[in-house]
């Protein structure tokens, strides 16, 4: 397997201009002769499908939801970063680039990240033109707020619903193309395999979730914008249906999987309350602008928060990281929460929680201002917990939220399988080992609006006249493989539900491949996962049949893939004998408990090649070359 990152030559700030000036182009009259499949319609997929349609390509867009607007991007709350420097606080494209590289603990590519920072400003322009109602100052100009890991205010927001409003912008652009006939939309269709013909990605296999029919679709290129995989933990902030099947199937067809162990545990989520819990709810990072995080100084202090005096409280983030305080990056804030809970100072009935307290902010700014800023989040918290955060501090705890890892892509967002492009959270490219807040929306939209529509032409220009049809034997093979797999799940007729297996897998992953990982833990997790997977295929019970809507069957296929992905995550976490960002190996920490990187041995992207069932995957290393930024120990003190 050859991994060529294809970073353009020249100075960092000119790489993207250079690349754009040198890509091969498809003549406007020829664009309609190319078919492009886009899977997923979140921020990345919808913006890509709409933009490709605008350019004149023939697009087919597949989603498993009833409408493209349901994608989980819609749940992003806090905001989107852009280096506009509207606040005149010293922001710049370079600073956004630098913050993202540092925030990612020096495990991302310089070239990609700089391009992302450059494009951030265009995204805001585009979104405003589409009618995204970002928050404004009284003078009518756009408003900004701060997010974790940075010391400028560069985050644009639409109340606590920034993801929703940005997704609606992309969704509306997509619906416009559907009306114009450039995009054909396939709702309630789930991708179950990738079809590779002569080494190139040329189509997909999908299941119609209403009729159960399994169908093949051919195209000149395939784009996956299918999101992240932290539902492998069962309980996460992801939507219930978010899954890894599309990228995992592509991986099994030859696409390298990069840095699977880099997962983000978000520090501010509502803690679990019982066994029935189906998901965890995020409380936006923006709350850390005004909320103060604390636990009692005393172990086992179960008094009401109001009864604990100032002197008896430990504002541990402010104490440990005075220059960033409550706005320390996510990986650091999460680990710090785990640490105080491990010390027995956690709050709530489970002892796994910390306070996020707004009393000072309400005193300083008044309740009205706090309501304006976070009203809908406070309401959501109240709906779920029946506690009033205006009166008593929120209880929060870290939860799986985002996957920095994903399919390996080059600078052009193409995987190592020619013709297969991967965008948004589904790829691995821009966040290194830890993503900063308000950067996921930025990356999804940069990929979809501005990068992929340009880079894909460079590939397609060389594919003229090489169209394949679904009559090729590769399609028949993939089709029957998918049918067999569906049948196998239905025929297992075991005793346990899919969810019961998924919960068990999630708990193994959370305990052993979550916020803290060790060699022993990971080795035992691998044994447990393999045993559970074997049991799954024998003992899973999938009710219903394959010819009508069947949610149990949909889940069963996704969980089967999570088992295999979980194994790769543990293998990757075991192999990476260092701590970096969200990957914390307890064996590798500084004397004060911070992540200890090992740049001499691990300054590379781990790209794993699938070698068939029962065989160990093979590791390929893409060295990370830092020309602009000096590698340093990340400090937020």
């Amino acid at each position, binding site marked *: 397997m050859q991994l060529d990152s294809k970073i353009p030559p020249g100075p960092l700030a000119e790489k993207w201009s250079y690349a754009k000036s040198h890509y091969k182009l498809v003549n406007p009259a020829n664009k309609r002769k190319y078919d492009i499949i886009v899977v997923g319609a979140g921020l990345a997929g919808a913006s890509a499908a709409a933009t490709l349609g605008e350019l004149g390509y023939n697009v087919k867009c597949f989603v498993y939801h*009833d409408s493209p607007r349901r994608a989980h991007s*819609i749940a992003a709350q806090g905001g989107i970063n852009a280096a506009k420097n509207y606040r005149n606080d010293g922001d710049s494209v370079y600073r956004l680039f630098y913050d993202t590289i540092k925030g990612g603990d020096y495990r991302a590519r310089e070239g990609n990240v700089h391009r992302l920072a450059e494009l951030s400003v265009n995204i805001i322009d585009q979104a405003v033109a589409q009618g995204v109602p970002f928050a404004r100052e009284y003078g009518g100009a756009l408003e900004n707020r701060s997010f974790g890991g940075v010391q400028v205010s560069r985050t644009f927001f639409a109340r606590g619903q920034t993801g929703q409003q940005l997704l609606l912008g992309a969704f509306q652009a997509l619906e416009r193309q559907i*009306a114009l006939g450039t995009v054909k939309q396939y709702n309630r269709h789930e991708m179950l395999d990738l079809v590779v013909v002569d080494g190139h990605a040329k189509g997909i296999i999908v299941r119609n979730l209403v009729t159960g029919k399994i169908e093949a679709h051919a195209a000149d290129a395939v784009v996956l914008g299918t999101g992240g995989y932290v539902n492998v933990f069962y309980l996460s902030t992801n939507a219930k249906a978010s899954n890894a099947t599309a990228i995992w199937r592509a991986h099994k067809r030859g696409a390298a999987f990069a840095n699977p162990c880099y997962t983000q545990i978000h520090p501010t989520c509502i803690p679990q309350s019982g066994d029935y819990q189906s998901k965890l709810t995020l409380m936006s990072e923006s709350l850390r602008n005004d909320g103060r995080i604390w636990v009692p100084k005393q172990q086992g202090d179960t008094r009401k928060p109001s009864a604990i005096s100032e002197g008896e409280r430990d504002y541990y983030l402010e104490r440990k990281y005075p220059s960033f305080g409550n706005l320390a990056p996510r990986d650091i804030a999460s680990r710090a929460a785990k640490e105080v809970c491990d010390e027995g100072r956690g709050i709530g009935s489970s002892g796994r929680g910390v306070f996020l307290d707004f009393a000072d902010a309400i005193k300083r700014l008044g309740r009205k201002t706090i309501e304006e800023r976070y009203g809908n989040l406070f309401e959501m918290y109240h709906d779920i917990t*029946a506690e009033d955060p205006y009166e008593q501090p929120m209880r929060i705890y870290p939860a799986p939220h985002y996957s920095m890892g994903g399919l390996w892509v080059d600078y052009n967002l193409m995987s190592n399988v020619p013709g297969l492009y991967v965008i948004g959270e589904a790829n691995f490219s821009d966040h290194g080992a830890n993503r900063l807040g308000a950067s996921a929306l930025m990356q999804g939209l940069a990929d979809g609006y501005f990068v992929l529509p340009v880079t894909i032409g460079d590939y397609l220009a060389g594919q003229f006249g090489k169209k394949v049809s679904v009559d090729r034997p590769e399609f028949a093979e993939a089709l029957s493989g998918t049918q067999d797999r569906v049948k196998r799940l239905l025929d297992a007729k075991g005793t346990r539900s899919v969810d019961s297996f998924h919960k068990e897998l999630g708990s193994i992953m959370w305990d052993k491949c979550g916020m803290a990982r060790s060699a022993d833990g990971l080795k035992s997790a691998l044994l447990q996962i393999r045993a559970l997977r074997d049991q799954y295929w024998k003992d899973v019970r999938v009710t219903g049949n394959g010819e009508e809507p069947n949610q149990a069957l949909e889940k069963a296929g996704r969980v089967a893939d999570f088992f295999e992905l979980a194994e790769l995550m543990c293998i990757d976490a075991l192999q990476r004998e260092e701590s970096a960002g969200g990957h914390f190996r307890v064996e590798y920490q500084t004397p004060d408990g911070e992540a200890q990187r090992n740049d001499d041995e691990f300054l590379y992207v781990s790209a794993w090649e699938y070698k068939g069932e029962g065989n160990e995957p093979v590791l390929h290393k893409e060295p990370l070359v830092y020309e602009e930024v000096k590698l340093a120990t990340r400090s937020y003190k």
Partner: protein
Amino acid sequence: MNLTLHVWRQNSRESEGRLVEYKAEDISPDASFLEMLDVVNERLIAKGEEPIHFEHDCREGICGSCGMMINGIAHGPLGGTATCQLHMRHFNDGDTVFIEPWRARAFPVIKDLIVDRSALDKIIQAGGFISVNTGSAVEANTLPIPKPVQEMAMDAAECIQCGACVAQCPNGAAQLFTAAKVSHLGLLPQGQPERYERVVHMVETMESFFGSCTLFRECEGVCPKEISTKFIERMNKDYLASKFKPTKEPVTT
């Protein structure tokens, strides 16, 4: 807590449906309504029966996937919440709960509580957008927007396209949904060039799928985002005004 459920079961669009009684026992009051159904479903699977199918995804009240008639009220008794954010503490031990799919001719049942809401997307396709291709935007702060205008546009833009407004309406009308999008875009300066043709095309498409509005205002009462019917007045005004403006023919799919 223990409840008695009467749930609409229907295998497919063509087949006949019926209400089936289930006991939901030993449910935590802190569980959400959908988590209560999860528990019931796990028990059904254990008995070898098919689980109750219902649409859901984010479970944070924002994706708009979920929705069911709970004792005849779209999204249940609480008001201002989607079904996923309704918690069992709002019910009493021993309650009987009727659970049905959205009731509207424009939303045929796919299975159990899942309905086909694709007619709503058709309304968006008719003009629920601002026609601006990627790359042609001007610098974002070129166009100042008064804060109250932006706030009002945002109030309308919060719609999650769940379809509760249609389900609750005695006429099965989609006025509140359509008005929310017409107002979101029509309030903003960016939306002005297409303002009047947008409202014409969206309203006419809406009329082809949905019933007519006779101002019952049931929609407003069940909207999880509490979108106001004042936007319907606004839409009607724009629709009337459009008769005096030049517009182009609608794009057809």
